[in-house]
């Protein structure tokens, strides 16, 4: 299971805990995590990436293992610690957005 930490607004929207666990088929990539998140929580569609272009929303950031993955290629494999569930994948609202 992949662990994902959601920001407050998305947690409330999804009626979930701060940290959620989702099934993601390997390879564990940003795209795969977002696909699974949106399938598990359909109300999150459009909140992290544009539904038409599938580009990350400008004021949403992604972090993994203390590093900013917001500009990483969405199909590149994430660190093993994310894939094993040892570390969570973070979805964060950028400070610039609010």
């Amino acid at each position, binding site marked *: 299971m992949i662990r994902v930490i959601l*920001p*407050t*607004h*998305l947690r*409330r*929207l999804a009626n979930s805990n701060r940290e959620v666990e989702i099934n993601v088929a390997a390879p564990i990539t940003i795209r795969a995590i977002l696909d699974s998140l949106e399938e598990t929580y*359909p*109300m999150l*569609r*459009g*909140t*992290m990436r*544009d*539904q*038409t272009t599938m580009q990350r*929303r400008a*004021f*949403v950031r992604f972090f993994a293992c203390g590093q900013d993955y917001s500009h990483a290629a969405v199909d590149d494999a994430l660190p093993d610690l994310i894939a094993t569930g040892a570390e969570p994948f973070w979805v964060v*609202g*950028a400070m610039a*957005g*609010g």
Partner: protein
Amino acid sequence: MANVRVLVGTRKGAFILTSNEKRKRWEVSDLLFPGWEIYHFNASPVDPNRLYISQNTGWFGQIVQRSDDGGKTWNAVGNKFAYEGETGTHQWYDGTPHPWEFKRVWQLAPSLTERDVVYAGVEDAALFRSGDAGQTWQELEGLRSVRGNLWAPGAGGMCLHTIIQDPRDANRIVVAISAAGVFRTDDGGETWRPITKGLKSAYELPDPDADVGHCVHNLAMHPKRPGVLFMQKHWDVMRSDDYGDSWYEISGNLPTDFGFPIAVNSNKPNTVYVIPIKSDSEHYVPDGKLRVYRSKSGGEKWQALTEGLPQENCYVNVLRSALAVDQLDPCGIYFGTSGGQVYASADDGDSWRALVRDFPPVLSVEVQTLE
């Protein structure tokens, strides 16, 4: 006994204010959707328990929420607003071509006759229709084909902010766009035409014959007199007696004819309300006084309504979707301000009181009268 439910959208969430027909004691709900901008909070005229909310933030974009139990519980419905076909470009603030980009839903207008039909006015300006209570949305793309390449945004964005449905003819809809103008369809949204004859925007539009580009702020119509439309424009209060085919000015003795909202008394189709603000570059009420203006003659002659409203040190604004009326007699009028107050009158506007004073800035006010 009737109940009144005031639906308030603010910059930091939504509220429901409830009273009975006496409109003296009000209950205020908890904050709904805390932290989200609620551009519109509206109700279905067909099913009073069906409510819709446009919920938006810069971080996470657009959500549309629907309640089927009068606001007790909510579910996020469809939020994909995809422009149809080759979207092309519109004008940007600097006159350069700019691609169409969806930003937010400004207005949710449930059908007057069909429970599951709802229209959405969006930014960048377009009109969408849902036939499944908001689960999916389809653009009525004929609207943007009316010289959409020439449309340009106003200061608040290029938004389709007002949707007027004809109660006698479901195929006839009038919409207003800032700053493209006012348009009408007579065939259910298939084709549209600008209805701007008589509008004058000398400072904003160099071409006096231009039929798109007028900055229309708001429209109002009484359901018993659908051919008569009232308009608050970027300067000028206007009126049409032929469903928008032609317009004439009714600003009359208003201290300033700049403002955003306009509304019609629910019992008196010729009684109109506006809330003037100082100017296009000074979006606050003039002279430090919050005054609603009422015309009982359908325009031209306006009376300042001040009892119960602050008459000094007041510098608020009232946005275009933040003025509404109930269906009781005398008519109740409600508006919300940029300062977070919601004011109400239960006597056609003769006197006012603040229902709340410390809300976040108010973006939207709608009212349900529940029998």
